[in-house]
């Protein structure tokens, strides 16, 4: 597999082999526009998937086949358009040169899945439907799925932001004030490590509604890592930064808000990432057992009806949803921590 993200552009062999005068070579380059052969991988993979599906379509739901062909048609059409446009559009060429092999491989993986499920029937139905029927469920049930995603997003955002807000405040207090550290640390050490999902029965009794219980569970799951990492970041602020600030005439609020918190930012972001991971888990579990909406609920509901196509459809949405949220947090991190030298890439 050629998955290296380098830019190899095919140049006319003339330019590479001989070394003509600069003017001539410039003219030739202008004539033969740069072109990435990797743009062809996607149309080829689409064609392979389409031919395969055509061969196997007789045994499948004709509606699903129609949807799958439409999907392949859109992907194939777009990829041909990209292959034609890329000589004239540098950003597009870079993108397709980078993403072409990956997307083609994903399409081929779909074909392999189709051979295994619809072709050879190697896996038992109804647990392993073919890609076409998963796509069909995704399209035909899109309104419910959209509604569920929206509810999950609301719940996640509310719970996460609440947890982060409380976590940063408690973390700063525990990290800065010795008194807060003395009383807060034991609570943090005892309550923090309890898996939040174990508190679900309790939260359902205590909270006035299932939504509030789900939000507070997500918030609690986020609160612990954010508090822990914020507190350690604040208390590990380099003493010399604080000394310098003091000799510059800094007040205590300057020391906390302009020195300790910025210095702790890399740590705080580690807490935010850890909290985001546990918030996904808590969200799905809370939706499954408590709130009767959201993607977690949808998975359980579809499984109850043995509609595994819907289960996979929801998993696809979850993957896209959670990785988008993760990307947003990484972008925010890159914005806030521009001053850091090397940072982990997402």
């Amino acid at each position: 597999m050629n998955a290296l993200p380098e830019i190899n552009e095919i140049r006319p062999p003339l330019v590479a082999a001989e070394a003509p005068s600069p003017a001539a070579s410039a003219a030739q380059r202008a004539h033969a526009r740069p072109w990435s052969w990797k743009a062809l991988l996607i149309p080829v993979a689409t064609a392979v998937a389409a031919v395969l599906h055509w061969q196997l379509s007789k045994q499948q739901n004709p509606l699903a086949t129609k949807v799958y062909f439409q999907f392949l048609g859109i992907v194939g059409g777009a990829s041909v358009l990209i292959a034609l446009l890329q000589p004239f559009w540098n950003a597009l060429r870079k993108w397709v040169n980078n993403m072409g092999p990956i997307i083609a491989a994903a399409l081929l993986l779909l074909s392999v899945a189709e051979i295994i499920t619809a072709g050879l029937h190697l896996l038992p139905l109804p647990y392993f439907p073919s890609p076409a029927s998963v796509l069909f469920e995704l399209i035909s049930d899109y309104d419910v799925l959209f509604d569920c995603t929206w509810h999950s997003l609301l719940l996640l955002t509310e719970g996460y932001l609440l947890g982060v807000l409380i976590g940063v405040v408690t973390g700063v207090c525990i990290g800065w004030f010795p008194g807060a550290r003395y009383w807060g640390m034991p609570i943090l050490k005892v309550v923090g490590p309890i898996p939040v999902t174990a508190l679900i029965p309790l939260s359902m009794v205590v909270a006035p509604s299932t939504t509030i219980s789900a939000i507070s569970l997500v918030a609690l799951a986020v609160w612990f890592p954010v508090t822990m990492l914020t507190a350690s970041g604040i208390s590990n602020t380099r003493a010399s930064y604080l000394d310098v600030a003091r000799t510059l005439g800094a007040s205590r609020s300057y020391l906390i808000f302009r020195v300790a918190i910025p210095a702790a930012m890399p740590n705080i972001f580690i807490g935010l990432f850890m909290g985001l991971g546990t918030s996904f888990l808590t969200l799905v579990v809370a939706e499954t057992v408590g709130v009767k909406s959201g993607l977690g609920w949808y998975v359980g509901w579809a499984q109850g009806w043995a509609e595994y196509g819907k289960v996979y459809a929801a998993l696809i949405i979850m993957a896209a949803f959670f990785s988008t949220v993760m990307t947003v947090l990484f972008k925010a991190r890159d914005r806030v921590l521009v001053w850091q030298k090397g940072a982990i890439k997402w």
Partner: protein
Amino acid sequence: MTAPTATVEGSSLRVCGVSKQFASPTDPTACTQALDNVSLEVTAGELVSIVGPSGCGKSTLLRLIAGLDKPGLGELWVGEEPIVGPSAERGLVFQDPNLFPWLTVRRNIESGLVARGVLRDKRHEVDEYMRLVGLDAFAGAFPHHLSGGMAQRAALARALINHPKVLLLDEPLGALDAFTRMRMQDEVLRLWESRGTTMVFITHDIDEAIYMSDRIVIMTPRPGRIERIIDVTLDRPRERSSREFLQLRGDILEYLHFGHAVR
């Protein structure tokens, strides 16, 4: 010996019978006597350097003057005011520039004004200070893009923008290469001469001490004491290889017991 300057921004500094003990990190019942009955008077606008082997308490003395630590015994005064805590009138520059890595060079230099809440009135001075230390082209750069000398110049500008009455320098040039160091010595002298800030300058480098200071304080360790104070009466600018310079250098090495080769 006073500073050859027209305007004197600096204040005098008095250290009276100061002692400081630290608990030993290994044995909690034992104490290390970092400073033992140290007294020192610095006149306004004077540049005094402190030399001595490590462990002689010179950094401790500087932290006491900065107000970051409190003495066990004795008193410290700036002008007519006793030192009770850190203040913007006593700037401090460390060997590590300690620029705030999350701020750009410009924001670092501004930070003293922000800390005192006077940025709005004095914003125009920031450009002046960046020009003063030759960093105006790097205003938007983050500290990790700077070389050691540039970072130390930014740290100097950050300390100077508050117009400190006393500037404390704890081996500020120790981490720089020899050529950058000599250039920076001239820059510090230029700033000192133009403003008349009182400076207390810790160094390991005897040449640096002779080249820059009005007086050299020699300290000895365990317990940290002032061994003697030497007036440097050479005319400025000083010639690093003049006979008097080398003579003085030999004397100081003698006082520090490095005068003779091992026989």
